[in-house]
């Protein structure tokens, strides 16, 4: 299981679960830890989470599939979340999406052939003041223009 979660974290979550009255509340933390380590959450990750927290895999899967920032399929080295909610839409979000797709040569939900980027639409990133916005991994990019997008992609590709 080491491949999914390093031993110290493993022990940490087990101890936390044992001390918690509602181990359910640790589902997201644990899934994120696995994702951090493994890149995405495979079935075994869901099962491991369930086992550590004393839940059924289904109970974990319900949470894992509800949140679009838990990846249940392999993703590229970095994930681009472009906002498709109302403020961004009103300020050119569709053009941002189109530019990203054209630039990367992939559609939403796809990963570039070199494995660098996965492109995902996202609901409001909480950056409406800086719309249109996107997030690459945890870094936020606002007031996007084609140029800014190109620069961001250049910077983020490693």
């Amino acid at each position: 299981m080491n491949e999914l979660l390093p031993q110290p974290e493993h022990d940490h979550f087990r101890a936390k679960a044992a001390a918690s009255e509602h181990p359910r509340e640790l589902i997201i933390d644990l899934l994120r830890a696995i994702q951090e380590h493994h890149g995405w959450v495979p079935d075994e990750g869901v099962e491991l989470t369930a086992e550590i927290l004393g839940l059924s895999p289904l109970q974990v899967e319900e949470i894992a599939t509800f949140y679009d920032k838990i990846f249940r399929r392999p993703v590229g080295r970095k994930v681009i979340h472009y906002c498709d909610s109302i403020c961004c839409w009103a300020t050119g979000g569709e053009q941002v999406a189109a530019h990203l797709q054209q630039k990367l040569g992939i559609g939403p939900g796809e990963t570039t052939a070199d494995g660098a980027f996965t492109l995902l639409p996202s609901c409001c990133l909480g950056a409406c003041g800086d719309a249109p916005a996107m997030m690459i991994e945890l870094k936020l990019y606002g007031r996007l223009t084609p140029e800014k997008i190109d620069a961001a992609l250049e910077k983020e590709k490693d």
Partner: protein
Amino acid sequence: MPTLTIDNQTVTVPDGTNVLEAAQQLGIVIPHFCYHEALGAVGSCRLCAMKFEQGPVKGIEMACMVQAQDGMVVSTVDAEAQELRAAVIEWLMLNHPHDCPVCDEGGECQLQDMTIAGGHGIRRYRGKKRTWINQDLGPFIEQEMNRCIQCYRCVRTYRDYCGGDDFGVMGSRNRVFFGRFKEGKLESPFSGNLADVCPTGVFTDKTCRFRSRSWDLQEAASICPHCSLGCSVIPGARYRELQRVRSGINRQTNGFFICDRGRFGYGHVNHPERPRTPKLQGADAAWPEALQLARRRLTDIAAKVGPEAIALLGSPRASLESLALLHDWAKQLGGARFCGDPQPGRDRAARQLTALLGSRARSLEDVRRSDCLLLVGSDPLNEAPLLGLAVRQAARRGARVIVIDPRPVELPCNFQRLSTGPEELPQRLEHLVSTTEPTDDLSTLRTLLHQAERPILCGGGDLLGEVGIRQLAAAADHFGTGLFVTLGGPNSYGAALLSGDGPDADQLCEEMLAGKIRALVCLENDPLADGPQRMARALGKLEFLLILDHAPNRLSRQADVFLPTTTVAEGSGTLVNNEGRMLSFSTVFNPGIPLGISSEGGHPPRSFSPTTAGGEPRPAWAVLAQLRGENQSPEMIRRKLEGRDSRFAGLSLLDPDGEGQRVRGGGHPAGSHDQSFPHPAPEGSLPLLVVEQLFGSEQLASLSPALDAVQPDPQVLLHPETAAARGLKEGDTIALHTELETFSLQLKLNAAMTPGLLLATRLRDTPLELFAPGSPTPCLVGKGGGDA
């Protein structure tokens, strides 16, 4: 009791009623999906809109979310409300495929009904629909996810009501999937209810997939014959074949749901080996010939040796009507011996219960409303599944649940376990009521029982036996609680009432062996499987054996006369459930070889005959009346019975769609019999406790092919400590030597059971079938298979 006006009609409803329910009381049905009487209202489908014109609430509201209050004036026909409902239905239908012609739900589909009722007739949506890959959910339930309208009834039933955790909802927004983490059998013993609650064709009964439209099915209100609770069911038959069973509604017993044994155990009715013709020593015969011979032989024996030489043995799965005729026949013959149950342990337990239950009787509904439940020697999910479901409902409302049992009992709720060996159960109960006990592990329990407002003591007849039931009743008196004890079969209680203080099957065996009983009549039982262990020897002493049954019976070839009877679904009658509630069932269809069998999948046979092939079975009451040379009808039998025995008053007025009625007055405990001093257990032996399991133990359901896939493997359970002490480990094949026989089983370790005990499931058609459920037998354990 608020009074409100809906569509210009005034209605007064109990406090807590919502406006949707209030409208229903006026016969106004507004489209709704998420509201369900048993699941409650959650206001999620947004369909039940009504206009609140006057009173404390104003405007358009979801009626299921508004409590009825005085002075409300509500309109269901308001244009705006109607328009909203039509729009919501249109949204719900966006992704729904147009596949009604190939959908098993078609014809009984709430979505079809509500769509039309909601005013949505023409589909305008032209876009792509959301589609899914379905999961294989095991042998019982078919999934067709594209049809889902996200009402969440399935999850609320499976998870919230039934306590299953392997089924749920995944995804978000307009892409939600209702299923399992991975494909596989739904684990809950109540999984079949998904077919009933899903208002669309997402979840349907796999065992009758593509078989019939609902309007082609013959259906009628009936009672489940697979345990002592008597849940209300609606079997459906077509082409002389019982094709499915769905849940009926009885708010006092099962409520709205049934278990998978009750739903999928129906195959015994269509069983290809079911005996359908009268037989004389195994050879087919005609009814008149067989009846005449049986009558003559019995009259001869009565005249030659005396009527006491005849024994009439009933069964907990026979109807009250048949048992009453059998009982009456004993008297008519001038003192023949009557016993209502071939299994002495269960028989004595049931009689003890009928003698003690009285005003302590509680229903499943009372269990659901209880605030403290103590279960002693009761394993609901295996012995009477709907009790487990009722216990869960109590727990959801905050009831404390305590289990005293040697088994690793599981319940779909939290509970506290006090592991106790089977022989110590009565003693435990004695301690519980003793006032001088120092503080022990029962003291909290005593306090709980004293403090609770609606406590109920639940028990299982198999493990408690008559002694345990006496103790449980004493404890109920002591704490002033109700009593709910499950018994062996659907009419154990009725059989016990009629048996009174007459002999039990053990005594009958004794008298058969002594040559005092020369003729035996068995009504719908298989005494070799369910009778006392010396029954096989005792049967050899008989001059005449008459069997009436509908199940493939081990004795049907050996009996001098065998007469085929109808099943519960093929006749009408009454069963008395474990709380003494008389429940009547009506005829669903007439017997006959299912066309599916006689036509072997092709065109039905082209030969014509005035009779139905395989239609010879007759209701047991009719056969018994004919044997007695009388003309009877079930109505006459019922009227006579209530006339001569006031405990059954009201029997003739029972409505199969009603809630049934408790018998008035109790029965007798069985006469004391000198328990031959038990052989001292051989040194080093362990008690072997054979118990009932959800699937595989109950005789009729074990004949249902739909349940083959869930038949458990025979195995024996030991506590890890006990196993370690004997050098045994998980997976070992161990030989079990009992007085009765020697056989070997795979060993499984279980830390939740009581140490020092061998635990096995009573599986039909295995050596374990021969053990009386609930009574431990001394057993020597050896390593390895065969004669170790």
